[in-house]
């Protein structure tokens, strides 16, 4: 089975007022089908940027300089380089085949729309034909069951609606409904689509274990707790059964107790939906709970990739080792990593970590090590190997 996502030679630079920042350099990474891959690193390591690069949502003044991100597309059945796709096609993938969950659910949700509306939006965008078909079915049943004067009067209207929804169901860009949706007043005539989307939304909310989903759907984000909001955001991301779910520090802003529930949810997602998850975090403990494999990044570069047991039991890269050492343990003095994060504007030549590395070799200052497979499925970028 091929990998779901193959990233090669990714480079992302930020052209700021002060200079060029190398956010990501030389990144080679694979995300396999059905796995949960964790990216671990400090702030500024480039982990969030990797996520945004996959979705091509790098904000100004950043630019994806080079590289390729190959994604095996479910619908087309072949492989696509996401970095060369047209914006239209990319938008068809966002929220649909690849979706993202962010760190602050409160900030991620629009305060003036209800939860239900925001989730339905995804269905209305990517599942329009399906919704059209469902709507047509309902009108059909109205036409066949309707009796009496009131029904008789409404019949022509229903027949027209049926034609409308049939068009939506059949063709991909029907003219009539599109014209309608432009004129604000007439947009209401497409309300059946909304209704169908709402049904799917409530189902989705149920899936993420939100109690009383129908009632929650009509509430606004500020009326929900942090955990609920995050579940809603996850529901929004999972709505169209994406093949890849990217989660950028989804539990960081939550209570520890809620965190545990959330991680349980992620584990279940893995099992139920069969989606791959790219789980970004700075917390090693969290990574160990959810991930199958873990990648460690430092200053925009990949240091080490291995299965979660391998990484924790046999860490190879000095940075990984230092990270594991730094986890606070009772009865022991707090270990820190000396030095400070490399200056992103003027990164040190050679290995970015070498100024802080206890095992640095002379060559580390000149040359960067390439990612090498050192043991089964365990890759490191370090001259020590």
């Amino acid at each position, binding site marked *: 089975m091929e990998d779901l996502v193959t990233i090669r030679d990714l480079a992302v630079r930020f052209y700021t007022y002060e200079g060029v920042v190398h956010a990501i350099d030389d990144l080679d990474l694979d995300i396999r089908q059905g796995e949960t891959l964790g990216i671990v690193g400090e702030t500024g390591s480039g982990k969030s940027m990797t996520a945004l690069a996959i979705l091509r*949502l790098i904000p100004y003044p950043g630019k994806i300089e080079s590289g390729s991100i190959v994604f095996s597309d479910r619908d087309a059945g072949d492989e696509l380089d996401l970095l060369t796709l047209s914006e239209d096609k990319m938008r068809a993938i*966002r929220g649909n085949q690849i979706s993202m969950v962010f760190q602050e659910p409160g900030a991620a949700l*629009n305060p003036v729309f209800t939860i239900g509306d925001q989730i339905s939006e995804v269905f209305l*965008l990517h599942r329009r034909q399906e919704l059209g078909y469902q709507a047509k079915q309902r009108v059909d049943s109205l036409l066949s069951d309707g009796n009496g004067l009131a029904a008789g009067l409404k019949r022509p209207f229903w027949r027209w609606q049926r034609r409308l929804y049939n068009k939506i169901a059949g063709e991909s860009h029907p003219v009539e409904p599109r014209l309608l949706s432009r004129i604000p007043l007439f947009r209401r005539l497409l309300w059946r689509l909304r209704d169908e989307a709402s049904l799917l939304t409530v189902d989705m909310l149920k899936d993420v274990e939100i109690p009383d989903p129908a009632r929650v759907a009509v*509430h606004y984000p500020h009326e*929900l707790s942090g955990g609920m909001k995050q579940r809603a955001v996850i529901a*929004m991301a999972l709505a169209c059964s994406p093949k890849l779910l990217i989660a950028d520090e989804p539990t960081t802003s939550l209570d520890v107790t809620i965190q545990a529930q959330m991680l349980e949810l992620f584990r279940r997602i893995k099992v139920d939906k069969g989606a791959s998850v790219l789980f970004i975090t700075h917390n090693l403990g969290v990574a160990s709970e959810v991930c199958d494999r873990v990648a460690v990044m430092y200053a925009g570069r990949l240091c080490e990739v291995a299965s979660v047991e391998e990484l924790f039991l046999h860490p190879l890269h000095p940075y990984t080792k230092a990270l594991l050492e730094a986890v606070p343990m009772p009865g022991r003095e707090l270990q820190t990593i000396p030095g400070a994060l490399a200056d992103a504007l003027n990164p040190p030549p050679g290995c970015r970590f070498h100024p802080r590395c206890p095992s640095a070799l002379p060559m580390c200052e000149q040359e960067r090590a390439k990612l090498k497979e050192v043991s089964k499925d365990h890759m490191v970028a370090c001259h020590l190997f």
Partner: protein
Amino acid sequence: MELRAYIIRRLLLLIPVLLGVTLFIFGITMFFSPIQRATLYVTNLRQLANLPAIIEQYGLDQPLVVQYGTWLGQVLRGNLGWSNVANMPVSEAIWHFLPATLELAIFATPLIILIGIFLGSTAAAHKDSPVDHGTRVVAIVGWSLPTFWLGLILLMVFYGYFRGFLPPSRLSIQMDMVVNSAEFIRYTHINTIDAILNLNGPVFLDALRHIILPVITLSIVNVAFIMRLMRSSMLESLGKGYILTARAKGLAEKVVVNKHARRNALIPVITVSGYLFAALANGVVITETIFNYKGIGWWAWQSAFRLDIASVLGFALFNAVLFVLVNLVVDILYTRVDPRVRLGGSVQ
């Protein structure tokens, strides 16, 4: 019903403010002599002939507190005194001049709001582009324009240079006769609306021709204000997290900006509408004066100029009460628009 309780509560809180307003106005009247103040109480010309009687009747030489009480009583009964300028009681004068000003407001307000919002959103969506800088310059210049000067220049060009193309006043002389004739029914005294209701094309066009310049004069200064506000509000909105979410959902950029960003950006603009009312009230005085457009603003200026204090104070009082009510409406509107500020409690 939460909303009803809120309105009642606000109206109750309004009373001390309104009382304060009346007290303030009354304080100003004390700057005038009793003879001058007599005009505050009379309702027809004949009464003025007998000043000592007036002073006696309304106790204009009594202690302040008593006077205030008397005056307040009169005001609450609708007696705002006599307007020399209008040659009718002040309260009547207000009704007489109001339609003209309303007509201006009806045309100017939507124009200001719509253009301001449109320009502001465009500037924000194309930040730092020539469009943005251009609109910004236009906004600042517009904001710095003296209203009266703009009016004069517009008249100079469109009335003087272009030979009476867009004239001052409300109607030309012929149309004025038509409007005052028996065949023309004045439903609202707002010329454009009455013209439509009377199915009279020429009057409508004439009224329109006369109203264009005043409306433009009124609008330019205020459009600048709304535009700047909308721009910064949009920029703030576009920087928020939910915009990234919207893009990550695969929404087209147009939808992201128009639906998600704008809805949030409009909220501060709505709260500012109350100030727009005040700005219009100010602008109307100058604009009507320049264009000889006989509305409340024109009347207010004439009164101030000729020291017709009953009129000036009546006008100020009217304005203050209206302003306070408008703010109340805006506040309620605000709760409707921003779900976070609903009046009731929340769930969970």
